[in-house]
């Protein structure tokens, strides 16, 4: 059906365990799977990666392309040979208080990201491929850790200007699964980050939550018949393993192979400048 499947997004797309992207890939075994999700990546990086990917892979109408937009208050910088993608600027060690005070403005983030979302949608429409827009948090939730919606008049005007574009984005994980509170669902897995920090209640969706999200917001995309049972097993593993670490072999679907070879020419990523690369392999699901 689809010849290739391209997924773009943040850690909700590529993580230590199975995400929505892996579930889609599992459901379309004939499609070559490209996962360009990046831990901590923002929407600027997503735009850049999509354009770069098209330059290299030439998207066609036979492709399935799904973009998972993330929260707007992120700042992606390509520095010293890596995309430094540390996530939300308000909780990102790369940016100090002075930077936030002087250079961070939510209208700026929205101006930048709404243009990116429109660009990508116009671009994919022009390709004629099958494409969908998912989201980690609702775009008008500026700070992913607060359920504060846009009130500012400038920002409200921007939402009005881009109303039709925003209408293309499916409801977010944050609102659909978590009722706008990341810690509303239990139990949560425990994760050990590469820095050694233990995250006892990892808010990233579990494999079962990823499946639930897809079934809720993307019913038009049929999934594999055995997906429920497969995900159930993987989910059990994720919840019962208390030391999931980015340094370990990720929990994934099936017999995962990691072929060598860069997907994009600019291939190295790091998470918050910690030096741990990730995120960019071809995953052969079967």
């Amino acid at each position, binding site marked *: 059906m689809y010849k290739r499947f391209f997924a773009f997004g943040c850690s909700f797309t590529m993580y230590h365990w199975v995400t929505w992207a892996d579930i889609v890939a599992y459901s379309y075994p004939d499609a070559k799977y490209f996962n360009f999700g990046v831990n901590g990546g923002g929407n*600027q990086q997503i*735009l*850049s990666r999509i*354009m*770069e990917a*098209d*330059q*290299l892979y030439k998207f066609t109408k036979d492709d399935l392309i799904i973009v998972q937009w993330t929260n707007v208050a992120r700042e992606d*910088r*390509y*520095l*010293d*040979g890596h995309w430094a993608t540390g996530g939300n600027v308000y909780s990102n060690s790369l940016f100090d208080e002075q*930077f936030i005070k*002087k*250079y961070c*403005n939510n*209208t*700026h983030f929205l*101006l*930048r990201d*709404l*243009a*990116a979302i*429109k*660009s*990508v949608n*116009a*671009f994919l*429409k*022009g390709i004629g491929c099958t494409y969908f827009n998912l989201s980690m948090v609702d775009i008008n939730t500026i700070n992913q850790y607060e359920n504060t919606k846009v009130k500012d008049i*400038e920002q409200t*005007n*921007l939402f009005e*200007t*881009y109303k*039709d*574009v925003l209408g293309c984005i499916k409801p977010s994980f944050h609102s659909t699964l978590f009722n706008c509170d990341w810690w509303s669902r239990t139990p949560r897995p425990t994760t050990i980050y590469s820095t050694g920090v233990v995250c006892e209640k990892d808010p990233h969706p579990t494999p079962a939550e990823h499946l639930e999200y897809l079934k809720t917001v993307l019913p038009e995309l049929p999934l594999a018949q055995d997906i429920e049972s497969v995900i159930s097993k993987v989910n059990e593993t994720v919840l019962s393993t208390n030391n999931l670490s980015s340094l370990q072999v990720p929990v994934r679907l099936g017999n995962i192979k990691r072929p060598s070879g860069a997907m994009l*020419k*600019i291939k190295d990523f790091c998470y918050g400048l910690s030096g741990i690369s990730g995120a960019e392999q071809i995953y052969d699901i079967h």
Partner: protein
Amino acid sequence: MAYKRFFAFGCSFTRYTWTTWADIVAAANPDAEYYNLGEPGSGCNIMLSRIMQADQVYNFNEEDLVIVQWSGINRESRFLKEGWKHMVNSVHHAFAKTFIKMFSDPTHSCLTAYAAMKSVMTLLDSKHVTHYHLSMIPIVDFESTKDEHVHFKPVDGSELDVVKETYKSIIERVRPSYFEKIWNSDWESRPNRPDMKHHIFSTIRKDSHPTPEEHLMYIRAVLPEVEISTEIQDNVMIDNKKVLSQVNLPDGSVKCFVNNTVKRIVIEDVPSVY
């Protein structure tokens, strides 16, 4: 083709206190409503944002002409409380040197600028808009233009080459720059500059922006698709004489766009586009 609307985007090479290439193109398309949404200091990221907003508001179509004058790709614009602020070059920028030292990276500039260019080109292609892309300085060999040099970090040439190769088909769609075509790749090559009272230093300096005549030369060199009548050329030269014969003010003392033959709608006239 008779266009119904003409949209120009760019930096101070597009919107200035005297006639620019955009005003000349507008004069050559007298039936087209003329929107000059350029802003001095703009970088590629503001152009992407502004073009996408403009499309949301004006819904570009096949009867439109859109020309984008891409600026220095090292530039970065941020929307702050006071509005857009621009990091232009080592002298004129709103950002602290620590910001530049920490975050300026030529590969970042290339990756984001080329993605912006591709985004704009594909949008306009998909809407069957006639569009052209100009440039102030080379969008590839930008390190050679010392006035736009803001980077303090060494450049990994091989990494940049990979990015440039990846985006080759996009880069090729951008016409040669003013720096190459008019300045022969040397900012000192054209000494007869207009006098301008500097907006920061309040002293009279030689202005490095293209004169009306230089804009005319550029358009004739890189955009043969636009026919420029003798009358328009004469009017541009009238403006040129005015610009060269007086001390100009940054607030637009000349205001003689193609000898007052064009009326332009500027960004301040469009409150729904930031």
